[in-house]
């Protein structure tokens, strides 16, 4: 009984078991679902959400939210092919440039939130609106094809049969988990999310940590943008849109409180896989777009009941 109780107090594990259960049942009942190739494909899709949600997790832990994730993914996916210098055979310079731009956008979000005192939800929303306009000017609304070799390698390579995107996700997960749970700065983020006033009075700089957090969120969104570009081989306006809400949903499904201060990236990882699995299952059931949308919403609600409940206050 106590074991069951402690399980329900551990949302990351709970979400993980939920994924295992869904995969098991779906593999036994649906032909082809349990095939190695299909599961690998699901993980590949989850990697994009997971990486974008890494920044989102950090920001939400601090009590903020980043609504510019989708726009930053689009910006990176469109700008990268345009700014990759042709003389660079590795393509790494283009990646560094694109990631700097993404980080810069995140930094601007942080600056707005920290110095101008604009609420993060508004600052990042306005940033997304702003970028949307800027993109159409830059890209002219047409899709751009990527020829950057490093990006294509990231999107298509499969060392030892494992997609490079999934390996990237593993690396990001390790770094983010270390950052949150093993480094002083992670403790500061959590302290700011739990009680900003107490954290400030204890000498935690709100301004500095806000800047770092939103810059990190921009960086991870940029990384997700590069991965999605590599997988699609094309960048277009709107390519990042689906990842805004899914990144938030993955965080919340993983048991992180949307109010900040409580949670872990360890929950976001199964949260991202769960979301992708849900979408895949709905696609298998041959339904009209309307019914698919209803099923997706209902499933998120049902999953929330299991893993995303706020503690009674």
């Amino acid at each position, binding site marked *: 009984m106590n074991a069951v109780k402690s399980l329900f107090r551990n949302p990351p594990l709970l979400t993980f078991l939920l994924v295992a259960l869904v995969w098991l049942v779906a593999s036994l009942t649906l032909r082809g679902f349990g095939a190695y190739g299909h599961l690998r494909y699901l993980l590949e899709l989850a990697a994009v959400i997971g990486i974008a949600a890494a920044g989102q997790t950090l920001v939400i832990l601090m009590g903020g939210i980043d609504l510019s994730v989708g726009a930053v993914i689009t910006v990176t996916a469109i700008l990268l092919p345009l700014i990759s210098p042709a003389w660079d055979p590795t393509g790494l310079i283009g990646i560094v440039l694109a990631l700097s731009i993404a980080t810069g956008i995140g930094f601007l979000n942080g600056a707005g939130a920290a110095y101008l005192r604009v*609420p993060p939800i508004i600052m990042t929303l*306005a940033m997304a609106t702003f970028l949307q306009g*800027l993109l*159409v000017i830059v890209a002219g609304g047409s899709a751009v094809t990527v020829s950057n070799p490093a990006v294509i390698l990231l999107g298509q390579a499969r060392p030892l049969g494992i997609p490079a995107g999934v390996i990237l996700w593993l690396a990001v997960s390790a770094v983010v988990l270390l950052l949150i749970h093993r480094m002083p700065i992670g403790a500061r983020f959590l302290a700011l999310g739990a009680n900003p006033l107490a954290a400030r009075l204890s000498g935690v700089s709100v301004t500095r940590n806000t800047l770092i957090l939103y810059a990190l969120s921009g960086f991870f969104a940029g990384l997700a943008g590069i991965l999605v570009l590599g997988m699609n081989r094309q960048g277009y306006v709107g390519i990042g849109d689906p990842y805004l809400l899914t990144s938030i949903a993955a965080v919340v499904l993983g048991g992180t409180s949307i*109010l900040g201060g409580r949670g872990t990236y360890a929950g976001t990882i199964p949260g991202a896989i769960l979301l992708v699995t849900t979408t895949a299952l709905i696609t298998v059931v041959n339904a009209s*777009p309307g*019914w698919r*949308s209803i099923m997706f*919403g209902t499933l998120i609600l049902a999953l929330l009941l299991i893993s995303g409940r706020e503690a009674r206050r």
Partner: protein
Amino acid sequence: MSAVSSSGWLYGAIQRRRNRSLGGLYLVVAAFLILYAVLFPGILSVGGFSKFTQNWFPLALVTMAQALLMLNGGITLAIGPLVSLGAVIAATTMGTALGVPGGILAVAFVGLAIGAVTGAIVAHLRLPAIIVTLAGSFIITGVALILLPRPGGFIPDWLSITLAGHTPVAFLLLVVIVLAWKAFLATPLGLGIYAAGDNPIGAFRSGVPVEQVKIVAFALSSLLAALAGLFVAAQTGSGDPVIGTPFTLNSIAAAVLGGVGFLGGKGTMRGAICGSLLLSVMINVMFFLGFPPVAQYIAQGLIIVGAVAVPELLAKGRARR
């Protein structure tokens, strides 16, 4: 909020404090309205005024819907889908035996029902509102798509002409709705929305049925959004299952422009309505000045940040001096 005579001075002081931060907003709105009237004197005629308020009306309604929940300490991401669903229900029922009155009732009933269910989920199952309404937005969009897979349906011409013709009916409706809100605020339940948003525990201990208030707030909010959809359907003469999409973010932006805070209890409905007017005028001015839609996005982003940041910075400067 109903003025108790003995504490009239207290009421006055609170009202002054709540109005203080709105002064700047009123000035900006007035400046934009004057700019608009100078650029397009047509607004001063009855027809021009009618058209202008018709463009503003749905945004004003959804902003009220959003502000209602934000004042209660919540938020909704389902505004756009509700507008779409309202439009779709209006367009699919008014051509049938139900007729126009039946159609209006159907829209109102569906709005109230969806809101009440959402509110019950948030209040009793203790799930965060932002994520419940996010999930709800998928469900509502799905229902709208099933009812009317592609734009169409039927709205009687006389209804379109009455609501969106050359008479300021929309403006009068808005006045009626605002008066109804004022009357609602005078009831214990209406006051409870602010109280539970400002301090849920304090409100609960003072006897406010916090969970019931939350359900009512969601029901009224969804009703307003669905009615905005009905109006949009009358305006365009048909239903469209995705027509409401931009309203979700615009409703949040307008409410925040109007000084409504995210943590509940902070802000006023008049501020929110002013915020929606400002956003509406801004969009209109940029459209008529021939800004390409792209530049409109950029300007909108900058203005929203500016409108929120400038008062904050001024307050900070004042505090330092």
